């Protein structure tokens, strides 16, 4: 400012003077905006469908648990479904997170190189199994097995409220559905945590080794705190996946219009995605379709929030670039 006669030269224009660069930059920008527009489009469409439902039913759509269109006024609410989606996800994470952590610790710190790469590839491949196949597998193979497991849980740990079962029916439980979800969450969470743990600086590992660490203390005090942000991000990505999963859950969960609060090995539970897929084909009319789309809107909102939190956490650590 002290020397106003100095003319600033336009460095930005000079930096983008290469024609190929300009074209490429534009193309990338357009592609980026297209994905934003699609996201916004989905939100607007679902929002527009949800609005009349909300006007008619108000907050009771979110706070009650019922699906009866024969009464007048209709008694409809998706609380149990939203809650059920969360419950299933929690069950899935309780199984998947320790499994993923142990797997990635083994791959990064213990397994010989060849075994590590075989494991890495096969776990990544798990993510490629179509969920309908997993659903069918769960229906025919997992169901009878899980029936036994749950009976054992109930027999020996039945005093814990989670493992109560009054009906004696162990099929179609949140536990089985959560287990299938866990299988779908494990590849995602494992691949992120493996990446994060693999990036523990060798300097820090060296330091820990020189201070007489064991594998456990090194993990506990060095690797896990260092990768905390990334690991949480991986868990959240897995959670996003579990919340939205539809068809695999459809095969194994007995959908009930009632809130199953915590009886994870009791038959019956809820899930928004499964509600939609099971009702959509036989919807009684345009209003029920609208109701289902409104349910979809809130599911979309929920997964969006989870994913946003995940991205925030992952980007805050700044270590995972994808």
């Amino acid at each position, binding site marked *: 400012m002290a020397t106003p006669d100095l003319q600033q030269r336009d460095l930005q224009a000079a930096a983008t003077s290469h024609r190929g660069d300009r074209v490429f930059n534009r193309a990338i920008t357009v592609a980026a905006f297209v994905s934003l527009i699609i996201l916004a489009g989905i939100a607007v469409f679902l929002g527009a469908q949800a609005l009349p439902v909300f006007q008619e039913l108000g907050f009771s759509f979110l706070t009650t648990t019922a699906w009866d269109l024969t009464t007048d006024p209709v008694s409809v609410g998706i609380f149990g479904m939203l809650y059920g989606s969360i419950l299933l996800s929690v069950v899935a994470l309780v199984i998947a997170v320790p499994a993923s952590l142990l797997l990635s610790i083994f791959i990064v710190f213990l397994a010989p190189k060849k075994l590590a790469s075989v494991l890495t590839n096969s776990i990544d491949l798990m993510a490629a199994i179509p969920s309908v196949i997993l659903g069918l597998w769960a229906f025919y193979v997992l169901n009878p097995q899980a029936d036994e497991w749950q009976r054992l849980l109930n027999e020996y740990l039945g005093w814990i409220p989670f493992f109560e079962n009054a009906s004696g029916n162990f099929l179609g439980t949140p536990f089985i559905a959560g287990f299938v979800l866990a299988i779908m969450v494990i590849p995602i969470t494992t691949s992120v945590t493996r990446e994060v743990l693999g990036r523990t600086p060798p300097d820090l590992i060296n330091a820990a080794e020189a*201070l*007489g660490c064991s594998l456990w*203390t090194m993990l506990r*005090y060095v690797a896990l*705190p260092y990768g905390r942000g990334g690991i949480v991000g991986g868990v959240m990505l897995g959670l996003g996946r579990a919340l939205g999963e539809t068809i695999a859950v459809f095969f194994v969960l007995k959908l009930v219009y009632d809130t199953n609060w915590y009886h994870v090995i009791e038959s019956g539970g809820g899930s928004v995605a499964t509600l939609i897929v099971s009702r959509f084909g036989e919807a009684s009319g345009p209003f029920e379709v609208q109701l289902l789309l409104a349910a979809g809107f809130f599911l979309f909102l929920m997964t969006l929030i989870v994913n946003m939190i995940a991205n925030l956490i992952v980007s805050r650590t700044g270590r995972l670039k994808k």
Partner: protein
Amino acid sequence: MSTAEFEKSVVALENEFAKAAEIRPIELETRDVSVWFNTRKVLEGVNMQFEKNTVTALIGPSGCGKSTFIRTLNRLHELLPGAALAGEVLYEGKDIYGPTVDPVHIRLNIGMVFQKPNPFPSMTIRGNVLSGLKLSGMKRSNHDELVEQTLTSAGLWNEVKDRLDHAAGELSGGQQQRLVIARALAVNPHVLLMDEPCSALDPASTLKIEETIRELSKDITIVIVTHNMQQAVRVADNTAFFLAAEGEPGHVVEQGKTTDIFGNPQDQRTLDYVNGRFG
């Protein structure tokens, strides 16, 4: 025996005793140590003795196996893939690679400071000093006193005493390196290995670390790898010159008192190296 004769023998005896006092016990010793990575031999037949409470500098051009060598002295070498070793490393007279020896015990007695300052970023300054206790499961009483005492020994106490609960990452490179030294001291080692501890630091910080090294050597034995010839002269009682011919494993060309190695080297290659003619 005449008086003169008697006095003469007394003087001779006195000299004898004075000499004996100068000879310090051997804390650490290597016998014919050779080192491999897979099939590549990187060190051959290293015989060295490290006297108690002295500073020994290892000098030599890059890639001659100095860093590998000091990693064999506290069993860190074996943690690298493909690492192998022949010969013996004796700590207080016992082979540290013996079948009944716990490597954790060795690493606690023989600490290490690395080239790049590597405090744990997720811990506070205080947490870093005490991290060795957590990592090794060692119990020591009175943590506050330990923190003060080790940070004082490392020459850092006055700079950090008011912010012990701040993140270690706030410190400058030189301060971090002194923090790392304090961390190594907190598990009460008898030997401290330092792998080019000043190569990432500015001259002022280097000088501080060198002061610290001199101070520490009153109580512990120090082995320091350095590329800085003046540093070796300033801090080390003894010096060993490592060299590796093209495609050959490294070995010790010459070792002895630092004054001899720099002032009166016996080998032409040592003379050339310490005068900066190669390396």
